[in-house]
């Protein structure tokens, strides 16, 4: 029982962390262009014409 006092909150905190990460990635537009993300790793250099600042 005493281990549960640590383990259950730990499990919940990990889960909540993952949920937070998911919501953050959603908000920062990382799911907006899944096809593009798949292809962009093939490009050598994006600095010239990617976002400037």
């Amino acid at each position, binding site marked *: 029982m005493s281990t549960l006092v640590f383990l259950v909150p730990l499990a919940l905190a990990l889960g909540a962390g*993952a949920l937070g990460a998911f919501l953050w990635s959603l908000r920062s537009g990382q799911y907006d262009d899944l096809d593009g993300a798949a292809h962009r790793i093939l490009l050598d250099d994006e600095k010239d014409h990617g*976002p400037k600042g």
Partner: protein
Amino acid sequence: MTCCAPGADTAARYGAGPTPDEIRLASRDLGDGLRQTDLSVPEAHCAACISKIEGGLGELPDVEHARLNLSTRRVTVKWRGDTPPPLIETLAAAGYSAHLFEPGEDQSDPQLSRLIRSLGVAGFCAMNIMLLSVSIWSGADPATRQAFHWISAALALPALLYSGQVFFRSAWGALQHGQTNMDVPISIGICLAFGLSLYDTFHHGAHAYFDAATTLIFFLLCGRTLDYVMRERARQAVRGLMRLSPRGATVMRADGTREYLPIGEIEPGMVLLVPAGERIPVDARVENGRSDIDEAIATGESAPRAVATGSTVQAGTLNLTGPLTLVATARADNSFLAEMVRLMEAAEGGRARYRRLADRAARLYSPVVHLTAFLTFVGWALSTGNWHLSISVAIAVLIITCPCALGLAVPIVQVVAARRLFENGIMVKDGSGLERLAEIDSVVFDKTGTLTLGAPRLRSSGTNDPAVLGIAAALAAQSLHPMSRAIVAGLGDMRAEAPVISAAVEHPGLGVEAEINGRLYRLGRSAWAAGKDQPGTVLACDGHPLTSFTFEDVLRPGAAEAVQALQEAGLAVEILSGDHRDAVATTARRLGIERFEAGVLPAEKVAHLEELSSKGCRTLMVGDGLNDAPALAAAHVSMAPASAADIGRNAADFVFLHESLDAVPLALDVAREAGKLIRQNFALAIIYNAIALPIAIAGFVTPLIAAVAMSLSSVLVVGNALRLKGGRTKTRNLEQDDREPSQSRMVVVR
């Protein structure tokens, strides 16, 4: 890395693209002198496209930032300055056709992110509750169980309050209108499961259904989100198609200054300048100039009409050959287009009356289930006298029959079907469209632009002399007239033989002329080119005919096969066209269609469809023109090609992007198979309930049994949906499919 260069020809075929004024009008002010323009680039599909498009645009001096979204095939450009940089031209030079995307429509979709957030929260809660529940089911001691129940309750709360809102809102909306839908029993089930579990937790009970309530929310949200994503993708693809109605027009003021005004600000009496290759913004009278007007999209008539001073022209038609000075005779909201919109709104009753399969199922389902639960409660209360036990059993009945499988039965099949159609270039805008398509018993086609491509094709050229044909091709290349286009398309490779033409003059309504080596060549109407009045198009040198050309209406590829397949499927096929009787009869004969009507006005098309529907026929309307839009709205279900007029595309339930008319029988096959799978899924759900219900009524249901039974039935229903086969054979050629929107190219040619 040249896999994706569509060829420079594309840009040329567009004719005049959006003017700088139009680009500026469509751009969004971001403040600080920065403006944002969104362009649709249908042909972008690989990594090389990303670097070419972003690189090419990024090198323009005024461009701050360019980013391509490959999923939506749209590039967002941020630029500074008063005049927009040559975006379209730069993309054309890189080999991509581009067109303006509607401003404001690209805002990130609040409903989708809301659904995904709800899904994330529900998933988190359901997983953790399930983790705790498994420990309880494997025999936790009462103190631990009690603690876990409380933690589960705390976890279930956000899932219920936040994620559950999706269902509660829709259920409340339906109840307010005195109807029920599938979300009503779902909401009742979820809330009661949560309430009972909370009560039992308070009273140290052994059973809690928190896991059932949250897993239910999670599963149903999965189905709902997939459904939404699929439809949104289809809508995006349709929205990315080129807009055919102009955004504005150049107005000449009384003092001679020119100004580009948005279409809403054009008043009757204003003088408009419309160059060749642009669409007429509002109904108007020709003040000055001669030209040919392509009215195919407005009236269904395939041959262009020559106009001169005094003629009237309709909004939405295409000015082909010469610049026109027009006097507006109506405001945009009184124009032909607006009249079509009004007809459409009036016609929309039939579709609104349609009730979704799931809702119809819910209407039968909820009273049965709720009555069963109530009778169970009464039965247990009478036989045992134990109120708490009776309520627990009654709620257990509701939980186990809570229509998880039923809630997934329809959307999952429709997601799989829509996905299959999407791969074949057919966009489904609404799941109910699939349901309605499966019910049809007759098909009505428009002719121009639907059964035919709307552009003529060169049938014979009278001679084989490469020098003569080369000159004809070179002259034809100077004109936007559909017949010139047809000559270029038919003889384009002969142009190498031709001398370079420096100064060609186009005479609207007559033809093109140019001087080559001191001799006057004319290509056009026989009476004008050769001085002899005979039908057909003639190439003449100094008034002597060299050769003549004949044309034919091109059937859309796959039209004959599609019509045959539909007739073999037992559907009544007919043509309703605004074109001349002869043209319609020829097409009907070639396709083996017996019933056709020619010269039909838009309102008559609607009347015809309403007559069919009053006879009990369920009709699929396939059409593309402005004149078809009201009929598309009036039909039981409708389809439009990508080349259709904007409002036609918006009115249709399905839009097919490939040129071939195969899309119609294919969509029908998929829709019918989806209908079959949906019925099977309903049967599965009923069998499940037939087994689970007696167990629940007898009071043997524990949370473990409920969790296993509900998950099993959901998996079964999803697995059954994946069996959908229709349309699978055609997905082999992915490269082709990736290019699907390239059909929008032909739009201007027509």
